[in-house]
């Protein structure tokens, strides 16, 4: 630890500011509040602040950031993240440092975000121990009021001087280059620093009535308590304030922004929030978290349970920004959890701290935000809404997908849409997508001609495992457009027919004219090594239909199968799953023999932006293919 007199510290900051190769950020006053901003002089610095309006996360994960640029002639390219000036951020409180460490783990899980980490790498964090605490802050309860690591330098105000703890070589080098008059800390100084740090928790005005380690367990008991969540969220304005000011929130949206020539443009990511009404809405109009209570509940669960299960930490640092920014005052976690705890106590429910979860975080390279160019080589309309496209990557490579995976298809200037791959991996030179025209991107895809270009990212997601299904009897149950993703596995199985046992396909549509892959189905009907049964909900006067009429579950009694040997593979509209699974269960099909493909609003494709999240699961990463045994307990899934 070193000591620097305040005048020398001022000179140190001014020396940093005068170096044009550095971007010096510090806490300044803004109105009656505080915010991190560029420093013009050391005099602007307000290290005595309580909390900033926005956390320093905005320097690593900005409100708005260009990820990719495109040019219709040449395709997509990454916005080069590498040219970031060295940034020095002065005055970061311990809770914000803890939050950055959380974000580091979150942004590197499975795939790493190069934009975030480039900025992290090129920045220096000069922390400061808290001198004032906002009345909403409860960082001491979250163990975030002080911290021993995660910074390059950490300041403690000792009156006429600062104690400077050195946290990294980067920090030490910064002092060596720009600071003068440093002395070594004496025992007395070190003691004072310890004393100051212990005094921080005494500033806390919030009171959590129990130990926060009980939170994950309490939450999981309270998921279904609708009255609790309805009462607490009644006044919610869906304004998103609580999540936008949060240092550990990281949901984002991605949009395309063409310039006026329409020839080039950029793909931009912006902060998004799960409290906003349309966060979980898909192109068909279905909103998977349409009500205030469900969205309100989701935030607490994500912070207090889902991230805990995945990473082992409760993703809340107690900064108090959410509580202080909520106009109807319903966002303060302390109030909510105290209410919950009181109810739990009154009801005599026993809640214990959970075991430390089994964490296995891997990182396999960077997230690729840049689409590859591909060409439409065949276009085959199938119904008035669905068209089959055959696509070939321009660089000649094989997509290399698993059945059940999806790709993100880009149309220049319009956006990206997730489409399941409809062809099996055994078909290598190209791949097929069955696209239903519904929203902006899919309507544009329908307008493409053979020879037109698209962008392809992926393949993404956890698909089917054809190896594990070898030798088993397979019962495919497809509803409507659900046949499209199932086809990738189904046709693979047909390509390797002798590796599998009995193969049955039940396929239901609303009306005969909505049947997909009609030609292939006719051929299927002629095979004797596949039991194919189609059905329609109804057959209008004008159409001809000689097979079953009725919802898809009416087909199940018509087939024989051995539940021990049979694996059911299901895909269809959200409403279908409940009923099909109930019927299969009645026939004693074990839970782990039921596999399904689910759909949500998928954007980034790599489990980061948050849109596809169902409870603790990311559909784009943990799915879209799920085993019922694993997903049975997930309330938002079915």
């Amino acid at each position, binding site marked *: 630890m070193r000591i620097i007199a305040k005048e020398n510290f001022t000179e140190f900051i001014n020396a940093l500011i005068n170096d044009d190769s550095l971007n010096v950020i510090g806490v300044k006053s803004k109105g009656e509040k505080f915010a991190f901003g560029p420093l013009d002089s050391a005099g602007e610095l307000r290290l005595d602040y309580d909390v900033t309006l926005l956390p320093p996360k905005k320097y690593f994960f900005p409100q708005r950031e260009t990820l990719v640029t495109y040019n219709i002639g040449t395709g997509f390219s990454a916005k080069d993240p590498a040219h970031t000036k060295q940034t020095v951020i002065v005055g970061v409180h311990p809770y914000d440092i803890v939050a950055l460490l959380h974000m580091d783990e979150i942004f590197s899980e499975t795939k790493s975000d190069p934009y975030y980490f480039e900025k992290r790498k090129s920045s220096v964090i000069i922390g400061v121990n808290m001198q004032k605490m906002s009345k909403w802050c409860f960082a001491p309860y979250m163990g975030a009021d002080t911290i021993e690591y995660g910074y390059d330098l950490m300041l403690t105000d000792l009156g006429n001087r600062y104690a400077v703890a050195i946290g990294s070589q980067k920090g030490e080098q910064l002092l060596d280059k720009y600071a003068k008059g440093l002395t070594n800390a004496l025992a007395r100084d070190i003691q004072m620093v310890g004393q100051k740090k212990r005094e921080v928790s005494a500033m806390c005005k919030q009171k959590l009535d129990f130990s926060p380690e009980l939170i994950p367990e309490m939450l999981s008991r309270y998921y279904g308590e609708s009255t609790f969540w309805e009462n607490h969220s009644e006044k919610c304005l869906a304004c998103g304030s609580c999540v936008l*000011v949060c240092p550990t929130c990281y949901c984002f949206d991605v949009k395309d922004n063409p310039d*006026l020539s*329409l020839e080039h443009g950029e793909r931009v990511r912006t*902060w998004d929030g799960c409290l906003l009404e349309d966060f979980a809405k898909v192109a068909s109009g279905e909103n998977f978290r349409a009500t205030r209570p469900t969205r309100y509940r989701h935030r607490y669960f994500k912070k207090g349970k889902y991230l805990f299960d995945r990473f082992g930490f409760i993703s809340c640092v107690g900064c108090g920004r959410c509580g202080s920014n909520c*106009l109807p005052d319903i966002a303060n976690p302390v109030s909510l959890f105290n209410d919950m705890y009181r109810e739990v106590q009154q009801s005599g429910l026993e809640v214990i701290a959970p075991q430390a979860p089994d964490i296995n975080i891997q990182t396999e390279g960077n997230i690729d935000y840049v689409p590859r160019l591909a060409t439409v080589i065949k276009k085959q309309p199938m119904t008035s809404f669905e068209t089959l496209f055959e696509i070939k990557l321009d660089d000649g490579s094989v997509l290399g997908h698993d059945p059940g995976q999806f790709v993100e298809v880009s149309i220049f200037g319009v956006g990206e849409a997730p489409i399941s791959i409809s062809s099996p991996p055994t078909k290598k030179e190209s791949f097929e997508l069955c696209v239903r025209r519904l929203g902006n991107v899919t309507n544009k895809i329908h307008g493409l001609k053979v020879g037109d270009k698209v962008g392809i990212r992926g393949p993404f997601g956890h698909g089917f495992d054809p190896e594990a299904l070898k030798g088993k009897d397979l019962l495919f149950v497809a509803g409507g457009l659900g046949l499209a993703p199932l086809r990738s596995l189904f046709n693979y199985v047909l390509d390797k027919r002798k590796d599998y046992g009995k193969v049955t396909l039940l396929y239901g549509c609303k009306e005969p004219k909505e049947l997909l892959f009609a030609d292939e189905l006719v051929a299927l009907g002629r095979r004797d090594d596949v039991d194919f049964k189609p059905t329609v909900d109804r057959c209008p006067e004008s159409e001809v239909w000689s097979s079953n009429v009725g919802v898809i579950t009416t087909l199940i009694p018509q087939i024989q199968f051995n539940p021990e040997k049979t694996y059911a593979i299901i895909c269809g509209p959200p409403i279908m799953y409940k009923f099909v699974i109930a019927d299969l269960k009645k026939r004693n099909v074990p839970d782990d023999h039921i596999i399904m493909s689910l759909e949500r609003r998928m954007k980034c494709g790599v489990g980061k932006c948050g849109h596809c999240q169902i409870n603790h699961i990311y559909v784009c990463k943990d799915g879209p293919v799920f085993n019922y045994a694993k997903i049975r307990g997930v309330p938002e899934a079915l």
Partner: protein
Amino acid sequence: MKPKVAFFDFAGCEGDQLQIANLEEDILALLGQVEVVSFREVMKEHSDNYDIAFIEGSCTRLQDEDRLRQIRKNAKIVVAIGSCATIGGINSLRNYKETDDVRKAVYGENAKLFDTYTARPIDAVIPVDAYVHGCPMTKEEFLSVVKSLLLGKKPDIPTYPVCVECKKNENVCAFERGQFCVGPVTRAGCDSCCVNEGTICWGCRGLIDNPNENSEKEVLIKNGLSVDDAITKFRLYFGWQERRK
């Protein structure tokens, strides 16, 4: 083939059309993508053969309805620009007063010479395909809507409130400053421009689709506004939308 566009105005201040003039050099880029066949403020020529009609201003007289219907007939796409056209704007303020009182106040005994009725947005009279909200609209949003129309996609208009943009812009909340703001129930898309300039959100872009009006009114009252004043505040821009509910 560049689409043909035409501009029309009804009861408004022409501020939205001015934003088009304020595109400055981008006007030239815009002219590279569309052909302007009618824009009375700026050109003499006029043609009834247009694909896209941009309409500013509210409909405030029965006689305006015919003109609107004619425009709807001529155009493939109708775009309402500015709050007066999209939600009734400041014109709807007078809907709370008896029409006669208003006329008398302004024109005295000659009031009967001037007809008027409830000020309304143009979608109260004809179907509208796209909206550019705001008083005035911003150049950026106007261009964004134009680009969407040129690309054949549905314009992306926020359904969340101004608070989202205000927080991203790191403003000190109006309520924290002892002022009263309707941002929490007002449609975003303006990038919280008024709060950025040091004031409050007045609600010029209209209510979001599912505003929690009771909660917002409670917040206003909790912070010191009287019940009557809270109701009055909502009438500044939400007059037509509130009545429609």
